[in-house]
């Protein structure tokens, strides 16, 4: 029988708090991490249709990391280091007590090292001095720089992988880590999701794609409004989430505190369109169904869904359609929340933040509010969505994550029952 997998540590860097206690308190209080972008120097702000984002306004790596550790990596990887550090400490996971080759790192990242990437590209094209491209440009923009630096910082010598499937990246990181542990190729995996690309080029790209909210530039906290009639696109966020996954036997052996079991996972492709989901919701429903089957639970056993819910017109409606397809009358008995209403869409970090929220929901029975649900859209109405925090006993949580490239993931967490 394959190993069962549990979560034993959590770490967060987010627009509503750095550190799990701060993050979770802010989430339950329904605090928004969305603020106005006041400048994209030297670019004219008028050129950006959207001017709101979930930014982490006060972050310096020196505050959280040993001197020099974050120097050679981009902002997203610095976030990853900080989140992983917290998660390891939270799990009381000490690499010196482990067989290092049995400890893996799997990172989900959508964009990678775009801060330096954009700077160097801009300088090269403006100044036309190829010899002045920074020697660290390649190692920084290579998409596995975060998984590499996390392993180096914390001594994890096992499987080291990066998954990049846009907005579903770290949901797959969770699922693939579960597979690695189930298959016996690792005792533990440090799972991280991270992105920090609220940068002039990437942000302009999402603006041009007409994917971002533009109606609430003067009221940033109202811009991310999943399932609300007034939603008009997602709000970019940045951050990182880290989760320590271990086999149940390994966690028991070291007497670790357990948040939840990672019980099931499904990965599918809609094989349909680069950025548009299939509107009938069939593929999303299939993904959820496969994940539940993998977890050995029925739709009737699910208590909570951490929805992908980015606040786009089509995406949110498709997700609810899919939930109704799969859960039928159970759909209105589920508690549902949209974490992106708090922090925006953190891209590669989104799945990991959803995992953290779901683990905390399972342990506490508390469901964070979905902000800005002022006028729920009938096209995506669910009785269990609420602008207020909810308290409910939850035993099974389902995480949805969908990415550009027709990519879907679903992960099932269960409350601990050993």
């Amino acid at each position, binding site marked *: 029988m394959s190993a069962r997998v549990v979560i034993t540590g959590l770490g967060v860097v987010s627009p509503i708090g750095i550190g799990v206690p701060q993050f979770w308190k802010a989430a339950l209080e329904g605090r928004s991490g969305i603020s106005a972008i006041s400048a994209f120097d030297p670019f004219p702000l008028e050129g950006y249709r959207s001017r709101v984002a979930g930014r982490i306004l006060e972050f310096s790596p020196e505050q959280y990391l040993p001197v020099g550790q974050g120097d*050679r990596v981009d902002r997203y990887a610095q976030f990853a280091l900080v989140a992983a550090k917290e998660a390891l400490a939270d799990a009381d996971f000490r690499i010196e007590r482990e067989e290092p080759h049995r400890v893996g790192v799997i990172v989900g990242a959508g964009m990678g090292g775009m801060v330096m990437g954009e700077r160097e590209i801009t300088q090269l094209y403006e100044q036309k001095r190829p*010899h*002045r491209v920074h*020697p*660290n440009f390649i190692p920084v923009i290579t998409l596995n720089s975060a998984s590499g630096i996390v392993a180096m910082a914390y001594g994890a010598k096992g499987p080291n992988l990066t998954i990049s499937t846009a907005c579903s990246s770290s949901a797959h990181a969770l699922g693939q880590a579960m597979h690695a542990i189930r298959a016996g190729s690792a005792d533990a995996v440090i799972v991280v999701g991270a992105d920090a690309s609220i940068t002039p080029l990437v942000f302009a790209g999402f603006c041009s794609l007409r994917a971002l909210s533009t109606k609430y530039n003067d009221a940033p906290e109202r811009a991310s409004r999943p399932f609300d009639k007034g939603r008009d696109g997602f709000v970019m966020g940045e951050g990182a989430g880290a989760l320590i996954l271990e086999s149940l036997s390994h966690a028991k052996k070291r007497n670790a505190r357990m948040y939840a079991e990672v019980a099931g996972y499904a990965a599918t492709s809609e094989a349909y369109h680069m950025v548009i989901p299939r509107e009938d919701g069939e593929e999303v429903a299939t993904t959820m169904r496969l994940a539940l089957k993998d977890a050995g639970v029925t739709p009737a056993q699910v208590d909570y869904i951490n929805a992908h819910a980015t606040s786009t017109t089509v995406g949110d409606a498709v997700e609810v359609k899919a939930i109704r397809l799969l859960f039928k009358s159970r759909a209105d008995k589920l508690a549902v929340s949209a974490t992106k209403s708090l922090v925006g869409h953190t891209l590669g970090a989104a799945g990991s933040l959803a995992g953290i929220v779901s683990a905390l929901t399972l342990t506490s029975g508390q469901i964070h509010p979905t902000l800005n649900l002022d006028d729920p859209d009938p096209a995506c109405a669910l009785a269990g969505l609420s602008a207020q925090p909810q308290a409910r006993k939850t035993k099974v949580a389902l995480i949805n994550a969908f990415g550009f490239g027709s990519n879907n993931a679903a992960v099932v967490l269960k409350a601990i029952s050993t």
Partner: protein
Amino acid sequence: MAKTTEVSDKIIQALADYLKRDAASIQPTHHLRDDLGLDSMAVIEMLYRIEEVFNLQIPDQDLVGLTTVGQVIAYVHDRVMPAPAAPKKPAAKRSTKSKKA
């Protein structure tokens, strides 16, 4: 034109900035790797800064001769202050070793 002490001061300051330590603690006799703890990537980053400070391009084949602070100072000094006797050979002390492809 830069004087020797100016070159030396600028290089030591660039190193101090890079290493985040006091310039006074860096000596010309210091070995970049053994004394200052720079790995090969760090040496490349440090030379990248020095190239900017002195508006130089340091060819790959010259890197092998740059293992101490003093060697870097002497090298940069030669590049920015060509010897009057040999104006056509500004990098008189350049290593002739070629980098293995």
